């Protein structure tokens, strides 16, 4: 049977332009979240992790496209990689793509906002001539894009895949989360008793996957739907729990093999509570759990990618990253959350995400 490995990766975020920079910042407890006061985004002040002005300055491309391009370019710069061999997938994950154009131009050409059109523009920038694949599945998009690549590679269709994803912080998305009363008035506090909602972020991340043996092995993954509510998570956590168990089973692991769980941890009341129940149902309550939202905010379609890559680095360095913003456990199940960095030998970690539309995904990564 074929295996899928991560040959190169990049995170392009407010915390840095390479995975190494990002990982160092996260290990040092640095957050990209700041207080902003900009009427272009919201009538009042808000916390968010945003790129500094001037960090994105290529005039021929939108902010969204630049984020993807910078991230993919950095991955391609890491080796002599031919993406035009007919055996390479180019997969783009995003929830809203170029939606910023609505705010900037008022009446932009519709094609410019079509996700596929934008993905092709980015792929073409790198000389990729086949059609890219676009995954747009709410907040599970980034992890689902990696899982999609793995599945298409296991099916024999591709030997290699560029999987990239990004989302831009926009008034569109911020106003939407605010309309749900879901935005925290302080930097988000995942799993904490005093958590008050999400903090949004923006960023991009890319992995180069290959069937040739390399550093991190991409294990099995699974997706489930709550079939309960389109904007609220499952009351029981059974569906995310099922995805977790399927990911472990598909990789041939048991819960005790898992070094840590990189949870979604958006810091909304309902999400974190649901996740705690899922961790219980999957037998993972004695494994360390973290959420990276306190460093990056919620980066939507990029979240699964950014957080999986940080997880891979942490795995390689036998490190469990602390949950920034966490102090006192505030979910019904005794989840092992820590706000101190810890070190221990380990071989595998589990990444999970959940999103609107009732979707959940879980996936194993191994070294």
């Amino acid at each position, binding site marked *: 049977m074929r295996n899928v490995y991560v040959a190169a990766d990049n995170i392009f975020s407010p915390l840095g332009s390479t995975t190494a920079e990002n990982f160092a910042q996260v290990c040092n407890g640095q957050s990209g979240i700041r207080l902003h006061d900009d009427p272009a985004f919201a009538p009042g002040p808000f916390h968010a992790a945003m790129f500094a002005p001037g960090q994105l300055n290529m005039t021929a491309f939108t902010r969204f496209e630049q984020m993807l391009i910078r991230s993919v370019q950095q991955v391609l710069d890491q080796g002599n990689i031919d993406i035009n061999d007919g055996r390479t997938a180019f997969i783009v994950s995003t929830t809203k793509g170029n939606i910023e154009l609505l705010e900037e131009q008022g009446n932009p050409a*519709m094609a410019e906002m079509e*996700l596929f059109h934008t993905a092709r523009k980015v792929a073409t920038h790198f000389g990729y001539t086949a059609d890219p694949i676009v995954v747009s599945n709410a907040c599970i998009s980034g992890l689902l894009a990696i899982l999609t690549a793995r*599945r298409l590679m296991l099916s024999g269709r591709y030997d290699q895949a560029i999987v990239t994803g990004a989302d831009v912080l926009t008034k569109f998305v911020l106003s939407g989360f605010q309309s749900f009363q879901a935005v925290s008035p302080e930097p988000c506090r995942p799993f904490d008793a005093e958590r008050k909602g999400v903090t949004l972020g923006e960023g991009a991340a890319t992995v180069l996957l290959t069937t040739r043996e390399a550093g991190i092995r991409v294990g099995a993954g699974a997706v489930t739907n709550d079939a309960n509510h389109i904007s609220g998570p499952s009351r029981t956590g059974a569906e995310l729990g099922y995805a977790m168990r399927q990911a472990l089973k598909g990789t041939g692991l048991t819960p005790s093999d898992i070094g840590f769980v990189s949870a979604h941890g958006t810091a909304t009341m309902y999400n974190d509570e649901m996740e705690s129940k899922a961790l219980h149902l999957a037998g993972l309550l004695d494994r360390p759990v973290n959420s990276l939202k306190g460093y990056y905010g919620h980066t939507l379609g990029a979240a699964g990618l950014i957080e999986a890559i940080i997880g891979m680095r942490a795995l390689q360095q036998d490190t469990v990253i602390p949950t920034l913003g966490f102090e006192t456990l505030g979910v019904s199940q005794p989840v092992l959350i820590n706000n101190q960095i810890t070190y221990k030998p380990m071989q595998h970690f589990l990444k999970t995400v959940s999103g609107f*539309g009732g979707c959940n995904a879980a996936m194993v990564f191994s070294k």
Partner: protein
Amino acid sequence: MIRNNRIYRNNEVIWETPEDQSLPDFLRAAYDHFSGQYPKFHKMDHLSKLGWLAAEVLLQHRPFTGYAPEQVGLVLANRSASLDTDLRYFDSIKDFPSPALFVYTLANIVMGEISIRHGFKGENAFFTSDTYDEGLIMGYTRQLLYEGAVSAVLCGWVEVMGSAYEVILHQVEK
């Protein structure tokens, strides 16, 4: 398949309204004809209504029976993602951002609605492309069945932008 105000099953027209009927009126009439029993339908955006309706037409005729909820998956694609509703939501921001519209500003919500209606809890994936990429959708679906991730899949194309729409939905079983 739903196209030009005609609903087809296995390539036969099973119901139609005049071609010049507006999309909201067509959707309402089709709902009344095929269901009438699911008030949540009226809260949905056009994308979700179209997908919900196509699933209804297929599954009323030939339900997925004998599968656990986790064994049924959805693999859908379209061109415009949720852009049709995005524009409506963006209009609402000027006065008061509407949470009821915002929740439909994601392409995959249609899969959530179908899942809630039929209790499907298995795999989900939503892709976007210029035109219906049957090779990708069927290739991904085959891999899901081959891995045993699911045993039955509802897959295809659900597109709407303004008054232009098209639905192509397939039932695939192991």
